[in-house]
């Protein structure tokens, strides 16, 4: 039997070989503020972006019986590309399959005021039994982290305005950690929560909550058996930025909207949050830098996310979502799936390569 080292060395060798044949090419970069402006006169040329060689080829899955059965349980939603007002087309739709059981799921408690609307503030308390990964995003922002005194030493506050987080490594050596994230919650309130938190080896409990707040979800951060599909649309490759829209549908999770909201917050950098409507349902609208994310409950057990990048009118994209018939829905999954087994988890064998 191979040792773990032998397995990892083998896997690493295979992965290195996979990228060894990447064609060499010039870096494709965006215009850099300041320095690029300073050196505009020195630029020999600004040419159209390099069409890079990435990923596998599209394949057709005609006749694959798993396509219809795998996605049949989802609400049939698609963008009406004509209504978007851009040269938008379907890139592919993928059946994300069923999520595996997490090895050691972190525990998540979501608190909020149920009478205050879905865009109102939320507090997410995560117990991580193996050290917290928060602040791993954009680590160069870490100078903004402020130490906060707690009974066992120091916690760390990262205040990003609309979204802020307190990281508390309770046990040394990256053992038990508690992360308190607030979205739409001021820092003082978050510090009050920190002051009233109780913990033992089974997790953390909050004693001090803002008025009206109650527990909206308590459970693992990831759940077994949640099924997902993804549908991607995009404008054509051109000289300028590409615009993309991705619809994610998640089926089978408990309290899916509240738990789903948490998965947004670690991506930090939420610059605006508001309530809107998508498909006549109340939806959360969040701006994260150059991305606008809409989240809503499509049915009691299905929550949906629409991730919009690069459109001047992200709301117009959301407004172009429609319910479609069975044939249209299934066709999306039959004809436009990638070969990438690592991203699709599909077991269906490709039959035909597209041009």
């Amino acid at each position, binding site marked *: *039997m191979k040792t*773990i*080292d032998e*397995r*990892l060395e*083998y*896997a690493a060798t*295979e*992965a290195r070989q*996979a*990228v060894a044949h*990447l064609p060499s090419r*010039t*870096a*494709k*970069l*965006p*215009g*850099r503020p300041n320095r690029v402006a300073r050196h505009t006169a020195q*630029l*020999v040329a600004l*040419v*159209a*972006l*390099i069409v*890079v*060689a*990435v*990923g596998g080829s*599209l394949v057709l899955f005609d006749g694959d019986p798993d396509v219809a059965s795998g996605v049949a349980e989802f609400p049939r939603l698609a963008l009406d590309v004509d209504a978007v007002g851009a040269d938008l087309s379907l890139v592919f739709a993928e059946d994300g399959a069923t999520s*595996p059981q*997490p*090895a*050691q799921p972190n525990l998540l408690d979501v608190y909020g005021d149920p009478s205050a609307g879905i865009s109102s503030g939320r507090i997410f308390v995560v117990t991580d039994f*193996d050290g917290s990964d928060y602040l*791993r*995003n954009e*680590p*160069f922002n*870490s100078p903004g982290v402020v130490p906060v005194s707690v009974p066992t030493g120091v916690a760390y506050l990262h205040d990003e305005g609309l979204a802020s987080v307190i990281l508390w490594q309770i046990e040394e*050596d*990256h053992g038990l950690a508690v992360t308190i994230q607030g979205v739409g919650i001021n820092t003082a309130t978050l510090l009050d929560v920190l002051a009233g938190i109780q913990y033992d080896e089974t997790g953390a409990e909050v004693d001090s909550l803002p008025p009206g707040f109650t527990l909206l979800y308590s459970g693992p951060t990831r759940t077994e058996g949640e099924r997902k599909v993804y549908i*991607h649309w*995009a404008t054509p*490759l051109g000289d300028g*930025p*590409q615009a*993309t829209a*991705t619809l994610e549908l998640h089926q089978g999770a408990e309290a899916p909207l509240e738990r789903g909201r948490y998965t*947004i917050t*670690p*991506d930090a950098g939420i610059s605006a949050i508001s309530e809107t409507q998508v498909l006549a349902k109340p939806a959360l609208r969040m701006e994260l830098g*150059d991305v606008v994310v809409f989240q809503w409950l499509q049915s009691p057990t299905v929550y949906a996310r629409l*991730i919009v990048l*690069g459109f001047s009118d992200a709301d117009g994209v959301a407004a172009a979502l429609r319910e479609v018939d069975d044939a249209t829905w299934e066709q999306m999954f039959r004809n436009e799936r990638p070969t*990438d*087994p*690592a*991203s699709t988890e599909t077991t269906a064998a490709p039959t035909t390569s*597209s041009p």
Partner: protein
Amino acid sequence: MTGEAVAIESTSMSEDFQEFYSRERRAVVGLAYVLSGSRSGAEDLAQEAFIAAFRRWDEISGYDDPGAWVRRVAANRATSWIRRRAAETRALLRIKGSDFTMPVLDAEADLIWREVRRLPTRQAQTIALRYLDGQEVSEIAETLQCSVNTVHTHLRRAKERLARRFEDKEIS
């Protein structure tokens, strides 16, 4: 979107960045690949990391090891679902013009990296940097901005977990 994308000829781009990019690109794509599990999105994730480095090249070029910085950004973005998803979507736009297809890993290697991706993020990043990138523990600590002891802990726990999982799966 990251703004107007342009290709800058090597004569106009600072030579040190171009050299840095050429030297580090495959390693960073590989890191993004094993941590994201996405053949299609890995190169875009790596590209995002290089773009971030380029924007701050005046500062980052002065670091002892700019490669550690770009690896950290790539590793973080590869484990961030929203970045991964966006990169995959963008990458798949380009397929028709592609003359390169990243090979599929064989079944054993693919299974091992899948199990690595199921580890806690920091453990997965540590394993990828150690085995794929060949970094020493001290280099990983610099890349992930943590202590050497923490890296040792991540490595030990990660390997213990992986060992248990492979025993459970009865994989020889």
